[in-house]
């Protein structure tokens, strides 16, 4: 039982006092920031990201994973109580969760969401432990052409499958790839798109782009909206769901886990799609579909489970292939690169304690969430009542200090403000910024693999269609593109 040994190794590493403290800090901070209205998981991670710079790789990643789960759960609290989703994935949580809160079952809704997430988290961790090693071994057979095709598939997938316009998504990917090229070309030493600014020789920093595009742009869009109204907190005294509700919730949560695990594995799809799919599935399966929208327990637990399961399994392509499936995974990948780890199949064999430590800490993080959050719901709710005009200047402060701290250079803060303007303009034009971030992270890797593949094939581009692995990825890419663009044409 190699898997059990590896898991034991992971738990041994993750359960050290130091790592437990970082895991706890991550979960608590993630929930704390994630619960604030108008701040989604992505912004939360972006803001807290600089806090992990000064840690060694494993604690840093453990803390980030904790922040991620915490932020997701915090977002669920805001969705259920305020009907204000921090990200698209929680938009589904609002549907039934807020309806339950209106019906006086806010406490039960929060508890059920947490329990469903925990169930999905446990199964997701198991799945990573099972599927990670064989996938990693398979990935060792990948050549440069295969990697290039896989990344192309991931980028096209993220562009066309996220909500919104597929063509705009593709343009955002291209823009992200271009932004990723800024800096000195590793092969020739030629500085590209540097505008003779010495700070740009090393490229545009990851936090600069992510914080600017997401956090800064989000503050401005939030300021345009009216202050959210916090209601339905009186029902929080009765936290425990009834036996009937638990019974009703169990199978949907399991089905949701399955749906989420599947979507999480595909690069580029991620939690948003999986929670929608899980919700629709439950509605189709329900004996009384008219209850949906009125606070149906199934419609709450299935998407919450799917959301968390997808979050877990999207670590699989990130950790084994080095290809992030979602914007959040892009942040995790960026963190790994900043810590000096080259993500890819070799991580598992060269740094098993890192890989298995993260896997184990995910489970521990999920457990902490459950233990920490159910009793503390009252505290988080009080945070919801803080008016936004007191909060956002502090968010700006985190953006400033966070970016300044990377290189102790004000240029990073200026650039971040610039990307904030770009992010705001793009959001206003209904261009989703997540594919851009994915393109930015994969850009340099993609160029490198393209060059290597073409060098090995002596300049023959057919290599992408003669290697079976690469051919498979290319076919999927083409099929997805054709289907989505044809469907798009039919709609307009």
């Amino acid at each position, binding site marked *: 039982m190699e898997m059990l040994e590896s898991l034991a190794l992971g738990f041994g590493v993750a359960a050290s006092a130091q790592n437990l403290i970082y895991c706890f800090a991550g979960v608590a901070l993630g929930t704390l920031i994630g619960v604030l209205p108008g701040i989604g998981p992505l912004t939360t991670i972006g803001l807290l990201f600089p806090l992990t710079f000064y840690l060694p790789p494993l604690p840093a990643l453990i803390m980030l994973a904790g922040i991620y789960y915490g932020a997701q759960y915090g977002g669920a609290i805001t969705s259920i109580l305020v009907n204000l989703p921090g990200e698209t994935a929680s938009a589904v949580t609002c549907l039934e969760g807020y309806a339950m809160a209106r019906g006086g079952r806010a406490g039960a809704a929060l508890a059920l969401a947490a329990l469903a997430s925990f169930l999905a988290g446990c199964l997701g961790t198991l799945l990573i432990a099972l599927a990670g090693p064989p996938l990693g071994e398979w990935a060792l057979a990948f050549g440069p052409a295969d990697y290039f095709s896989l990344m192309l598939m991931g980028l096209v997938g993220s562009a066309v499958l996220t909500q919104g316009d597929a063509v705009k998504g593709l343009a955002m990917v*291209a823009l992200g790839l271009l932004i990723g090229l800024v800096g000195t070309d590793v092969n*020739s030493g030629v500085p590209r*798109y540097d505008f003779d600014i010495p700070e740009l020789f090393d490229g545009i920093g990851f936090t600069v782009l992510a914080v600017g595009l997401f956090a800064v742009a989000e503050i*401005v869009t939030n300021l345009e909206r009216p202050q959210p109204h916090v209601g339905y907190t009186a029902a929080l005294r009765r936290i425990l769901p009834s036996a009937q509700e638990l019974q009703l919730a169990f199978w949907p949560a399991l089905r949701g886990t399955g749906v989420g695990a599947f979507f999480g594995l595909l690069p580029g799809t991620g939690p948003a799609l999986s929670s929608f799919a899980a919700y629709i599935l439950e509605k189709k399966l329900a004996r009384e579909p008219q209850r949906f929208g009125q606070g149906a327990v199934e419609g709450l637990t299935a998407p919450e489970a799917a959301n968390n399961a997808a979050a877990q399994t999207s670590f699989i392509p990130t950790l084994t292939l080095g290809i992030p499936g979602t914007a959040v995974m892009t942040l995790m990948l960026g963190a790994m690169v900043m810590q000096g780890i080259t993500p890819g199949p070799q991580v598992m064999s060269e740094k098993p304690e890192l890989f298995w430590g993260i896997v184990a800490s995910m489970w521990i993080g999920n457990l902490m969430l459950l233990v920490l959050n159910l009793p503390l719901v009252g505290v988080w709710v009080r945070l919801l009542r803080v008016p936004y*005009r007191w909060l956002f200047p502090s968010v700006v402060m985190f953006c400033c200090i966070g970016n300044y701290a990377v290189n102790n250079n*004000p240029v990073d803060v200026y650039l971040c403000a610039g990307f904030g303007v770009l992010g705001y303009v793009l959001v206003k034009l*209904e261009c989703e910024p997540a594919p851009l971030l994915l393109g930015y992270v994969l850009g340099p890797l993609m160029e490198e693999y393209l060059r290597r593949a073409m060098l090995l094939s002596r*300049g023959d581009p057919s290599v992408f269609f003669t290697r079976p692995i690469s051919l498979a990825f290319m076919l999927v890419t083409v099929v997805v593109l054709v289907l989505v663009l044809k469907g798009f044409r039919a709609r307009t």
Partner: protein
Amino acid sequence: VPLHRDVIAGTLFVLIGAAALILGRRYPIGTAMHMGPGYFPAVLGTVLMLLGAWIGLRAFRRRDWTAVGWGWKPLAWIVASMLSFGFVMPRFGLIPALALMFPLAAAAGREFAFREVLLITVLMCVAAAGIFVYGLKLPYRLFAF
């Protein structure tokens, strides 16, 4: 008639793509076998221009032409507050930087209550000094003049 957001978006993408091609024209393209530093940027710039043109032209088949509601004022205040932080921080230290950043950022909000802003500024200056300078031991001086 107000411009459709897709026309603006398409124009923006075409302009960025064109800029990428123009700025990148000095980078050697190389051959397909030995790609130079200019190869990938040239491909991307072209793709971005084509996609931008598609997005922009497509909008003319639509009927939902409404103006984009820009909120330039809050954006300008937030950007100004970040720029002021970057400018003041290395010259005068963390506390002066935050003392200027907070009121400028708060001006982006709909209501600006002087006492409230003052209170938040003081509180967050103390908190930032505690977290970043004394807690995380970042090498910043509180006052540097």
